[in-house]
């Protein structure tokens, strides 16, 4: 079945989305760990260096590579045919990496488990290669397979789909096609440590960084 046919079926709600295995969240975390750990034995880890030079603040190199590979499958009209206008797959991963800085640790643990499950859980679908070594078409098959399975695998699909979209649609270059004009002002991202110099009309309310408050004991 082609992707278009699949989408049409899904769009009309004709296809069952629950094909059995429904995992608990704990099992999902466990499976993600198993996928990552167990596949050390078949040599599926490593060798990401040349493919994904991103040194993220949150994402490990292999996670960024997994995300970029998923974006190549999920974002374009046809898997692998990357749109001419917009961020590259690796830029999508870099955008996501910046977005994830400061997320609660528990949530980051779940996100890491999701990456492990997607990259190394391909063996559950009887595929010998890890996700990032598959063609873009086969990567889409794997992801749609998770979606169709329902339950926690579908959550993994939704999770990586959401991250790909966050990384893609935050980029100004994607907005023209939407008819979206974007912000009405050009300002950098807010500084993490705000001082009086940043605060405009609120400057008088702000104490100097490092100064001691009243009432120190």
């Amino acid at each position, binding site marked *: 079945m082609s992707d278009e046919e699949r989408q049409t079926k899904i*769009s009309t709600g004709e296809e069952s989305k629950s094909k059995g295995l429904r995992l608990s969240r704990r099992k999902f975390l466990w499976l993600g760990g198993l996928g990552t750990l167990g596949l050390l034995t078949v040599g599926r880890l490593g060798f990401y260096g040349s493919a994904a030079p991103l040194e993220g603040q949150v994402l490990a190199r292999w996670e960024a590579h997994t995300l970029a590979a998923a974006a190549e499958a999920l974002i*374009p009209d046809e898997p692998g045919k990357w749109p001419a206008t917009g961020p590259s797959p690796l830029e999508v991963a870099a955008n996501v990496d910046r977005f994830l800085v400061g997320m609660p640790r528990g949530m980051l643990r779940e996100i890491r488990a999701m990456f492990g499950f997607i990259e190394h859980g391909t063996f559950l679908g009887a595929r010998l290669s890890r996700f990032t070594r598959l063609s873009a078409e086969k990567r889409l098959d794997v992801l749609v397979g998770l979606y169709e399975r329902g339950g926690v695998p579908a959550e993994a699909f939704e999770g990586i789909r959401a991250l790909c979209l966050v990384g893609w649609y935050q980029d100004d270059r994607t907005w023209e096609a939407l008819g979206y004009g974007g912000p*009405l*002002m050009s300002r950098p*991202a807010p500084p993490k440590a705000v001082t009086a110099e940043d605060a405009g009309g*609120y400057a008088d309310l702000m104490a100097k960084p490092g100064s001691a408050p009243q009432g*120190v004991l």
Partner: protein
Amino acid sequence: MIYDASTFELPIRVKADLCVVGSGAGGAAAAAAAAEAGLSVIVLESGPFVPPSIMNQREEDMMPELLVANGSQRSADGRTTIIQGRALGGSTVHNTNLCKRIPDPILAEWEATRGMKHLSRQRWNELYERVEAEQDIRYIEPERYNDHNQLFKAGCEELGWESSGLMHNRTGCVESGFCSLGCAYDAKNNAAKVYVPRIVKAGSQLFTHCQAVRVLHRDGEATGVEAVALDPQTRQPKGKVTIEASKVCLSASATGTPAILLRSDIPDPSGRTGEGLTIHPALIAAGIFDEPLRAWQGIPQSYQCTEFLDFDAAHPPPDAGEAERARKDEVGNRTWLVPVFAHPMSTATLLPGWGAEHRRLMGRFDRLAAYTAMVHDVSEGRVRPSGDLGVDIEWSPSEADRRELLFGLARSAELMFASGASKVYVPARPVIELEPGDSLAPLEELDLESGDVDVTAVHPMSSVAMGDDPSAAVVDSRGKHHHLEGLWVADGSLFPTSIGGPPQLSIYALGIHVGEMISGTDS
């Protein structure tokens, strides 16, 4: 003054008369009332101060600054997204300025079931009038309704459904449409703009990047708050902050407040701390229109549909007859319909599909509208602390709320078609795509339990419900804890039930009420 606690020499120990935990509507208003009454107050806020001058209207930059978990906080089962604010000013910094009073049947029910001897309906009215004056709360003029709200209004009129304009707290609004990302024009009359300057002017202090862990107490009396300064970048603890205060007011929201109470081992014979959580769950229907409407531009949420919001039916008086009481369980009395919209990044994650299908939908972004059905819920969720800094939120819809949510979803779709949509999408797995004339009945049979339909909530409430009977409530109608002297609560946790509309106005009112009770200046 406003201090960034991450820059303190840590650990640090500071003394004040009152420590308020949280700077949202309740905390800021309570702190202002107490500070202006002469108390030395320290307000702790776990998030940053984000003044309008550094807001940049970009989702990827503002959501991490303004929202808990960047807007992705979920219930324990992962099926419900619960959005809350985290900056100085709390959720009032990112909300869309809606202001509605609690309807009289709900206040009457609270009086009948919870005592409320310190918070009568007359007291509510006085508080509302003050907040409405302080925040310049008024109806949005019809000529300022954007195209999105105009379509919504036209749909209501086409169907003959009861509908009306909404009141907002905005002054000097330039109609940019970026309200949900913080107002870079400082036109929101929010907690940071209205109450924080008053707190500072009164000589009190606010610590940002400072998260309360537990209330300190000894021999039945509050003695202060144990907190941690957070690294602004990683949000991980940097060092300990201890506030010594004989008065403590928790205003950390209906998720944060019960988590702190439970972490603090404070006596609660009622067993109600963290129980009874309501959230105003909502489902969304999106529609495609033939002409561009650019729903993200202009003032959002200026119009509402109340056809299916019957508070008299949902809250019958104690002396109601059998027929009147039976109406309480009928579907279609607890649904509030309003237009809702987001910028591209958030919209993209909401719309279903991938590849060409998703890009095709996003390609119609400027022709897209979305209506939400928010339910005045009766399901009781639960909040528990998760470690020293986190919360676990358990919430799933009761059968009554499930039916009401799906009824509301079907009515949203109906209204969307009445507004002129050529196609309606329900974000679900699989996505539901409807054409004009299609039956909407299947929407009311959807399975919410499977997690295949996205439920979103922005109003957690009722997890520390007030009541004057110590055996049935944690705090009384002053906001004062029944079993620990010097401990108070001032936020949406106090509501005994959900309130069926945007809560900020009522939380501000509660903040003033509790702040005056703490300082003994109530009128």
